[in-house]
């Protein structure tokens, strides 16, 4: 797979060096980050290293800042007026993604996202998946066909929709729609996939399918998943970060967090005493 250097847009000279580092090397380095919505501080001095080709879960009660941090990683928070990273840096392969010279469009191509509520475009399944590629100017038919099949297979959806690729994506069931969104995200071959509570709107069976999918995707992508569901974090992630009131309380291997938490608050949360 020929990975184009993610930050090599014509305008910006800086690019993240692409290295085939082994699983476990640091990909995203979150370094003492403070984040504000207007005047209210949402994140307090967060430091965290996300490792390559691992699944990292963010857990914590509602309003603890886990989704905010996730949306900082591809700068989706830029879309909300009055938000800012007041202190600290977020580096992907050593490049500060909030540096003015970084092309945010390129960043989002490399850091894909799947949302809480499935949001396929009101277009056909085929067009949903090729949307990101067309944005990059790719329009070769056989090329696109190949990507559509590969992405849908990657999202374990191919067999279910291969006969109706040109019908509306909104005609699928909730679980299928969410997998379509995952297929759409992996079609542009990002390095990182951010998942913001991807199963919260799904029934248990669809949830199992998406969780199985995450297990398959971890071999190719670095995944960061925000979840409310502690069993889910325990089942699918390698590392878990527990947030509370905008602060990172504990970050460790998932097994350690659930079996042997170092912090009393973490222990109270994972054992279901609050949250």
């Amino acid at each position, binding site marked *: 797979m020929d990975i184009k250097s993610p930050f090599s847009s014509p305008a910006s000279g800086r690019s993240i060096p692409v290295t085939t580092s082994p699983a476990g090397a640091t990909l995203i380095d979150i370094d003492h980050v403070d984040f504000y919505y207007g005047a209210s501080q949402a994140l307090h001095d967060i430091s965290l290293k996300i490792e390559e080709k691992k699944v990292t879960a963010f857990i914590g009660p509602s309003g603890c800042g886990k989704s905010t941090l996730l949306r900082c990683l591809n700068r989706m928070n830029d879309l909300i007026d009055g938000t800012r990273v007041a202190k600290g840096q977020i580096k992907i392969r050593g490049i500060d993604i909030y540096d003015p010279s970084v092309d945010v469009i390129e960043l989002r*191509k490399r850091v894909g996202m799947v*949302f809480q509520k499935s949001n396929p475009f009101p277009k056909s399944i085929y067009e949903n998946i090729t949307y*990101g590629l067309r944005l990059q100017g790719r329009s070769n038919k056989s090329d696109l066909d190949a990507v559509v099949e590969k992405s849908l297979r990657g999202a374990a959806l191919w067999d279910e929709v291969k006969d109706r690729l040109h019908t509306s994506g909104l005609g699928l069931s909730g679980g299928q729609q969410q997998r379509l969104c995952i297929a759409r995200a992996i079609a542009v071959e990002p390095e990182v996939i951010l998942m913001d509570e991807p199963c919260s709107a799904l029934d248990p069976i669809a949830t199992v399918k998406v969780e199985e999918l995450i297990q398959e995707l971890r071999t190719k992508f670095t995944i960061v998943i925000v979840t409310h569901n502690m069993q889910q974090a325990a089942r699918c992630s390698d590392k878990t970060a527990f947030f509370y009131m905008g602060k990172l309380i504990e970050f460790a291997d998932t097994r350690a967090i659930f079996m042997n938490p170092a912090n009393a608050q973490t222990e109270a949360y994972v054992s279901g005493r609050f949250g």
Partner: protein
Amino acid sequence: METPRPTSHSDFLVNKKRIRVLGLSLDDAIKIFFGGNAVLSVIVLALITYFLFQEGFGFFGQNHRNLLTYRQAGLEYVDFIRTQESGHIALTRYLSDLRLRQYNEYVATQKMLPSAANDALAKFDEFAVQYGDAVESIRGMVSDLTEQATAIKTKFLIAEDKKIERQQLLAAGKIEAAAAVKIETVDFAAELHVLKGILPLYKETNADFAKKLDAALMAAPKFTTPELSARFDRFKELTRDYLATFPSTTSSLETWDYTRPVPWYQAISAFLFGREWLTASFWQDWYGIVPLLMGSIMVSLVALVIAVPLGVGAAIYINQIASAREQRIVKPSIEFISAFPSVVLGFFGIAVLGQSLRWLSQQAWLAWVPGFPFSERLNILTAGCLLALIAVPTIFTLAEDALQNVPKAFKEASFALGATRLQTIIKIVVPASLSGIISAVLLGLGRVIGETMVVLLCAGNRIAIPDFTAGLAVVTQPVHTMTGIIAQEMGEVVRGSIHYRALFVVGIVLFFLSLGINFIAQKIVRKYRISIG
């Protein structure tokens, strides 16, 4: 110890404080109040519709009689020859245009003095006089016949009036007075005998006329430039075509029969496809809606061409790009436009816009614009610009709503895939709200087509079908519109007359037009709701 409660156990469910209005519970009273309002508005609507149709439908019977009289009184007969005469007038107009061009050529290019130029045109003038005078005998004949036919028509109409008078007297029980009303029955056969008797003389005169035209063409003058010669050749060709129509005119006259019935559908088709709206004429009234319909459509079209980019563009900017501060300023400002009474806009159109547009059209550096310069200050363009102003708030508000209804999740998904703001707007937001935008445009059109005051004041009010051969310059012509004609003429017509009813039918057409537009808009909106899911 528990003390027994004073109320018995069984009536704790009964509400003692229930308010009653006119013997009804409050709930029922409220229900009847609001339901009554709804029923009342439906009844009023139904009454308006009924009134419109009741007044309008009588028109077709009256129009049928109108057309029948046209034939029976021999007006149709005279019009055959009149058409021939007006054909000749058009040709002489072409000829005088040609003279002007040649004169300009002499003076401007060959630097002749005006007197010398006129001298050089002496041979042409001689030809033109000869050509023009050839029609005189026909013209005299037409004016004689016009008088005769008018006399027959007047006599017939008087007789009709008398009949009505007698009926009214009879109805009032005044039998003697009724008997005293003298009704002169019109014997069309005898009256028209004189009219038809002219035929041999016409044939003779016409042959003479044709001969004179031929002779005039033989002695045709020469022109100094190939362009003018070509124009004159075209003129000769037109004359020959004109001469070729003579036999058919003659045969129309020969076969014409006043007893031939007028089919009933002609009363409708003469209205729907009639190219003339001519009222209170000494000769014959025509009620054809085409010029008015064309006027309304042209004005609305110009308005939409201006208002759609402005309204939709502004909606996209405000909804997708503008900061909250800009939104707070721009949105109310655009919506504020609709606070102007349309008569004020019309006044502005006459005093400022029409004047400025004309001034602009007369600037030399804008001469390349089609239709520039123009002399009519009130025309399709002026009215269209103002109507666009009226349509913009409607289109803007509804299109903005449609854009607002696009789920934010679509935008987020698009951004997360690395789309720029422009790509997201073009590929996701606008397509997702397209049906909403289309219905916004349609409702804007509905708003514009029913607008009266502005077009009455600013469209120029000339009842004529726009000349589409002018290309884009057609927008600089004055027109009259359906709404304008109703507002202008309704005040001065006799209640129950054919003219009065014709205006009602115009109103019905307008009603159906608006209804159709709104219906389509509704359909599209409904479909759009489903597609978003």
